[in-house]
């Protein structure tokens, strides 16, 4: 009886506890998330700087030590404003407006050059000057030359700190820039004969325009030129415009730099239609890692995710009538229309890095509506002149392949903070 009563008590306890399951539980309202406010102020004037004509180090023969001169003439393709090249060779355009976008100001430049030591097609989008940035394309190895274009479009002097991440050491330099000055700096004196290095620049205050010009020769033949805008470290992003030629003789080469203090795991996917390439790299802190990408011919959309911020660039070599190459960088997704003026012999590479299809309207003389399937890209031939792409969530680049050489223009959003800034006040 005693045992039975105890067992009964135990069972009753179990039943009592189990029956709680049918009772509603008490819950606490979620934490307050702050007060979301929208504020608008007049943004800083929108500006763009194009580096202008390419530079040649050492004269035509390369024997004129210390000489660094511009050669030829760059073609500027401007949308929204008219601007004349500066005396220093560059082009600076500035517009003051609350409503800032590529429709207000969008510029790029191209230059075909054919000299004994400098030949190929160089093109770049002219982004807004920035206070800091990275170049991963540094190469001062045999047959290669890197020149840094640094321009101060402000009306005050400033100093730019340079930091070259070499294989064994970090080399630093400080470059004073007078107001309106554009300096051409051969990096060979800083990098030695290093064939792979990253360059970081940081101003003492106001933003500067910075570009890296790369030149290659093989024996007595010039084998390409490139003009690369700066990039910035990202945790995730995409790179569009990488088109591998059928006759590619060199695989695209990935460079990743980890500016942090701890190693970073990078997952990179290259999507080309049904083809899918996955690359996983561990990038030690403060190190530049290089890896060839085995990609099929055609356009590949590169998407990446990292455990912390990394800077990333991909080199693509092309052979037409000439050898030429280009360094591509990750670009931002456009959430609104993109406007630019297209040079000739151009193909527009549009990509959708998201998991949902998007519709865009491309206007280049005529308008056409396109549907971009998830994680896909399309190549469209566009004519010289005005080009606009309406839609949201797309990536775009201009692929230029001509007898003069090969170049890629990667447009960027043109906007300073100011309009409708959402601030969560806690």
């Amino acid at each position, binding site marked *: 009886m005693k045992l039975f009563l105890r*067992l009964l008590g135990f069972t009753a*306890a179990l039943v009592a506890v189990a029956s709680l399951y049918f009772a509603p*539980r008490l819950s606490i309202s979620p934490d307050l998330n702050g007060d979301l406010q929208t504020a608008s102020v*007049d943004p800083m004037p929108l500006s763009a700087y194009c580096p202008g004509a390419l530079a040649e180090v050492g004269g035509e023969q390369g024997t004129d030590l210390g000489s660094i001169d511009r050669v030829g003439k760059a073609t500027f393709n401007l949308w929204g404003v008219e601007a004349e090249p500066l005396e220093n060779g560059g082009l600076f355009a500035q517009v003051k407006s609350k409503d800032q976008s590529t429709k207000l100001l969008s510029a790029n430049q191209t230059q075909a050059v054919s000299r004994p030591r400098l030949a190929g097609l160089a093109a770049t989008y002219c982004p807004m000057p920035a206070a800091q940035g990275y170049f991963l394309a540094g190469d001062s190895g045999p047959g290669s030359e890197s020149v840094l274009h640094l321009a101060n479009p402000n009306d005050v002097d400033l100093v730019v700190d340079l930091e070259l991440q070499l294989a064994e050491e970090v080399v630093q330099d400080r470059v004073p820039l007078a107001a309106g000055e554009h300096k051409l700096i051969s990096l060979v004196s800083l990098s030695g004969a290093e064939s792979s290095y990253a360059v970081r620049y940081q101003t003492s205050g106001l933003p500067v325009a910075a570009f890296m010009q790369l030149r290659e020769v093989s024996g007595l033949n010039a084998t390409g030129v490139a003009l690369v805008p700066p990039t910035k470290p990202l945790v995730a992003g995409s790179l569009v415009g990488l088109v591998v030629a059928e006759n590619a003789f060199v695989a695209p080469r990935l460079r990743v730099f980890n500016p942090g203090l701890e190693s970073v795991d990078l997952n990179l996917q290259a999507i080309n239609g049904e083809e899918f390439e996955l690359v996983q790299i561990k990038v030690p802190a403060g190190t530049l890692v290089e890896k060839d990408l085995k990609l099929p011919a055609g356009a590949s959309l590169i998407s990446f995710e990292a455990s912390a911020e990394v800077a990333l660039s991909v080199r693509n070599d092309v052979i037409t009538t000439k050898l030429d190459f280009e360094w591509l960088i990750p670009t931002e997704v456009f959430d609104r229309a993109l406007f630019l003026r297209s040079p000739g012999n151009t193909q527009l590479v549009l990509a959708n890095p998201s998991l949902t299809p998007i519709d865009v309207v491309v206007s280049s003389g005529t308008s056409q509506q396109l549907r971009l399937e998830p994680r896909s890209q399309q190549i469209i031939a566009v004519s010289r002149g005005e080009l606009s792409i309406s839609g949201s969530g797309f990536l775009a680049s201009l692929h230029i392949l001509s007898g003069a050489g090969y170049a890629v223009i990667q447009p960027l959003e043109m906007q300073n903070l100011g309009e409708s800034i959402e601030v969560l*006040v806690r």
Partner: protein
Amino acid sequence: MSALSVAAVVVSHAKPEYLKTTLSGLSAQSLRPKHVIVVETAADQLSMDLARNAGFQLITPGNLSLNSAINAALDALPKDFGWIWILHEDSAPELGALHALAQAAEISPSVAIIGPKLLHWDDPRRIQQLGLTATKSGKPFLLVADQYDQGQHDSIADTLSASTAGMLIALDAWQNLDGLDEQTPIYAADLELGLRARAAGYRVMVEPSARISHAGLSMSGERTKSWTGGSRYVARAKAHIHIATTLLPLPMVVLLYLAMPAIVLAGIPYHLWTKRPGRILGQLAGWLWAWSSVGQRFAARARTRSLGSLSGARTLLASAKQIRQRKLDALIEMPDDPKPLTGLFVSNQAWFALLPLILSFKLWPQGAIFSEHLAPLSNQISEIFASTAAFGLPIGSGLDAPTDPFNWILLAIAAISPLGSDWAIGTWLFIAPALAYFIAWQFAAAFLSRPWLRTLVALGYSLSPFVLGQALQGNLVELTAALFAPLALLFGYRAVQSQTNARALRWAGLAAISFFGLATSAPSLAALAALILVSLGVSRPRRLVLQLLSLVPGVLAYLPWLSFWMASSTPELALSTSWATTGQLSLELAPWSLVLALAALFALFGLVRASAGLWFGGLSVVVGALAVAYFEPSNASPQLGLALLVLLTLGASGIKYSSKAMAVLTAAVFSGTVALGAYQAWEAKTLEVRESRLMPALVVAQAQANLGDVLTLKISQAEQIEAELIWGDGLQLEQRSVASKHLQAPTPSVEVAQLTAALLAGNSDGVADLVNKLEIGFILLNGEPSAIAQTEVAIGSMEFLQPAGKSEFGTLWRTEVDSSSAPETKPDPLRQEIILSLLIAALLALPSPAVVRGYRRSRRGEE
């Protein structure tokens, strides 16, 4: 044979069981008194019958004082005797008592009062009293008290006074001295009689060969309060004051009366520590009585001193040596019990505490811990105290809400941390599982006799997900509640079980502190614990009041919190007492639910062997704890932990025999427990530890210089731009609150957003005005370097902002605003009361010599 003519007066007050023995002893005296008269002041029929049957004269004059009763007897007797032998109903003389007293009376004509050797009623081998005197301060003092009678004090003769019980006094002396003073407190009456006799030139003696058994009903509190003039403690205090008034020089008496309030206040901690809270009321009542009857006291002094000088009497006061000896005698060592070998340390089970300590290796204290639920404490204890039981939070423009009740625990942790408050939380998390082992072991010891079973329970608890698991996750609040819950129940249970008041008071003090800790960390569990404590008190009504009092500090601390959230129409938030409380457990198959299910199965072992009380009581606690856990809106691990502890205790109580099967079972439970602990330790992520500063050094320094009156606008730039106004050196853990999570602090959001936008855009228009209007001293920009680089340039372009460097907190600029008025934090009105109640509990919890050394203060010895 003595030729003394003696009238024996027996004063009785309705205690026939004692009167019978007294009258019997009186009848058998070798020297027969000339008259025997019984004065029954309560007109008790049984007592009157006893007097009549013994053949003694009986009068019933009504409910009179002792003096009046004796005088009534004298009036009723013929005036043919020279001595009065005063006997109380509870003082039974031995055969030759009167004879011995009479012989002493014949020693000298000046001898007027002779006192007997009073023996314990129940144990006549022990002396209860042998002469009365006073200390130099006037406190009544027994020359001999509670000692075995081995003739060691038989040489005593002259004393200051003697007890009226068994006193032989010359009739003329009685009449000259006017007997006992009616206005004198009962405990001082006989002492004052002796004083007056000495002042009048009479000699007062004791005669050790006159032996009388005395029950001491007055001193043991068995008389009514009206008889003694209040409780035992009150009567003693009155007697002390009365004798002091008579004995001390006049300036000292005046000083004494003036200093009485201070003396009462100063005595409170001592009386609490000695576990005699009754003396506090005694002294208080004595003080009020003395002030209200000051005229009577001084009249008594004048009457005594009018009889003659007291200087001769001073030589008979207790010496310092006698007082010291008396204190030592009062501590009677109880016979040594065989020392149990089942204690935590004696049985070497304490070594097992190393297991939870080792498995907490990832919590090795290294500095301030940062997590979603943890932030550093202020490094100033005073700042933590200012945020404890306070109202008003330094958030936005100031949030009118109370600070978290759990701040009491934070204050305590910081105060006892040997490495400073920076390390306090880390140290607490690290040692908590080992502490839980000790606590659970002592909890189990209340119900289990075998040390290894207690160890099994203690390990099961301390290595469970509810203790070790919580510690490894940095769940400070839940872990703290898991320590206090078993403690509150254990101490409450001990208080109820205690046989002596001193021990019960000490356990109650500890229970009060533990319950306070529980109420400020897990109020829902505290409510369950309160129910259990009150139930225990009801089961032993003598301790019910103690059980209720032990809830007071916890209730006082929780009450303002509860009322605030009730008034805010969100009473459910009152169940969460800390910003650091973690979220609700979801009902799922997880280590904690598996552990509970296995423990429920293990509890079945107690089905046959556990006592009925333990079984059904334990099951009730388990059901209660699980029910509270189910409805708990935040992390219910303390409730589940308590259920686990009780289930393990129930199961272990069923393991009685050391058989092979039981050995295998316990080994399996032990291994499983340790394996679970190791798994948790292995799986746990290391908590982030870094320097305790929450703001850049410059801001901290400015905050210290301005006593916190510094306001910083912190802008976090990522995908979402966030702006926050931060006072002083940042929101320390004690400044964060449940209220700050759920109530919107008044903040000038529009202005803050506008200022933030302007700073981000680099547009300096109106920025200076906004900075001045909001009284912002610093601007801190935080975010990934690449994300904020452009903003740094934008802000840096504003000339009126001075760059103040970069740090791990971001980039800092200083404005021209030096100081701004931080919102005020005011103490809660009940803070003093909470502190007072905790102090009382702490004093009660402090072991007194009698408690610690296993000594017991003899209550008999105090008479």
